[in-house]
């Protein structure tokens, strides 16, 4: 307590009020538009994609499809007439997201009792009862099909894995894991530049790597007509989806 010079009792000084800086509003809002909303380049009528989008928004209002990327671990419960509780739970790492519109799929991979299992689920199928994201993260590639030729430890995930909590306003962590492979032969020649894989630790001799570079096509990155600029389309679809979900 404070000893005052003039003998009066010390006046109560309240502690300084804490200043709350709302970091959520300061950081730019993270937008995530699921890749199956973006229509592919082609000559199909945009009406088809518009109708599909309406149905997708309708389904999303009833059932929550969380945000996830290739490389995140998901647990999916589907309705199964032949199972005990009429439902079936599968945990796995998402290796590929394909398809556009209502037929969008994602493939989950896991190794169960030393047997690799891959299941392809449709996002908008009415049989799916719940999708939980156990671990949300990105990897260096868009397509993790090379996990089939990698050592099984990289594809095993416990079935009763606890969900890893992630904060809402932080950026998605990118797992820069370099995967070690089984000895060759592989299902595809992953060292070739056509696949553009960054997530494998190649332990092949230098001569093999140089020979694989013979199939590189350096002119492909300069071929301007192959580029598909989706920024404006994404803006429009983002607005449309948001308005649809708010109603």
């Amino acid at each position, binding site marked *: 307590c404070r000893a005052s010079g003039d003998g009066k009792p010390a006046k109560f000084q309240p502690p300084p009020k804490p200043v709350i800086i709302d970091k959520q509003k300061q950081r730019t809002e993270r937008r995530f538009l699921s890749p199956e909303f973006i229509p592919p380049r082609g*000559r199909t009528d945009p009406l088809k994609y518009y109708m599909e989008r309406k149905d997708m928004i309708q389904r999303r209002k009833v059932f929550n499809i969380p945000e996830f990327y290739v490389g995140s671990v998901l647990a999916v419960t589907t309705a199964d007439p032949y199972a005990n509780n009429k439902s079936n739970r599968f945990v796995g790492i998402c290796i590929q997201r394909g398809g556009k519109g209502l037929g969008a799929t994602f493939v989950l991979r896991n190794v169960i009792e030393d047997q690799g299992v891959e299941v392809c689920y449709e996002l908008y199928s009415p049989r799916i009862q719940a999708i939980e994201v156990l671990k949300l993260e990105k990897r260096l590639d868009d397509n993790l099909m090379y996990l089939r030729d990698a050592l099984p430890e990289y594809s095993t995930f416990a079935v009763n894995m606890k969900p890893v909590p992630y904060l809402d306003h932080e950026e998605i962590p990118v797992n820069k894991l370099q995967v070690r492979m089984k000895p060759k032969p592989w299902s595809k020649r992953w060292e070739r530049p056509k696949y553009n894989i960054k997530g494998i630790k190649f332990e092949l001799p230098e001569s093999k790597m140089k020979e694989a570079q013979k199939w590189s*096509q350096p*002119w492909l990155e*300069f*071929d*301007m*007509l192959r580029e598909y600029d989706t920024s404006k389309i994404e803006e429009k679809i983002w607005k449309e989806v948001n308005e649809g979900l708010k109603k």
Partner: protein
Amino acid sequence: MRLSVAAAISHGRVYRRIGFGPRGRLDLLRNLVTALVRHERIETPWARADEMRGYAERLIDYAKRGDTDERAMRMANFWLTEKDLIHKLFKVLAPRFQPHPGSYTRMLHIPNRDALDRAKMAVIELKGNPLPPLIRPRRDSEKTLLNQLLKGYREDLHRAAAP
């Protein structure tokens, strides 16, 4: 469901097969784009001009981003084989087309080539070039009957509106 297509069917293929393979096709189009940027009007077979048109317009879109942009500079470096044209692209053509959002080229037909192949030819030019115009839009002369009648109608309107 995508099944593998037989090589002889080309439904939905957008790129023509010209030159020696995909590399040769890009080299050929690169030469044509360089020539277009240099001379601003060239005469080539119609198919080559058609392929080249898309690439030329996208190159100008890249040039509009400005020459500080790393990607734009790499594209211009690849597509223009004569390096003095990079300066022309960024300093002359990009400001010229800055107000326009879209088409920067004009493609017109030409009588078939005189050589043995009688190839279908086209002339492709950048709009706003300093050369004399290719087509002069001709308007009907004033002495035609319809134009005289219209002129009389306009004069009547003026006389009715004036007092």
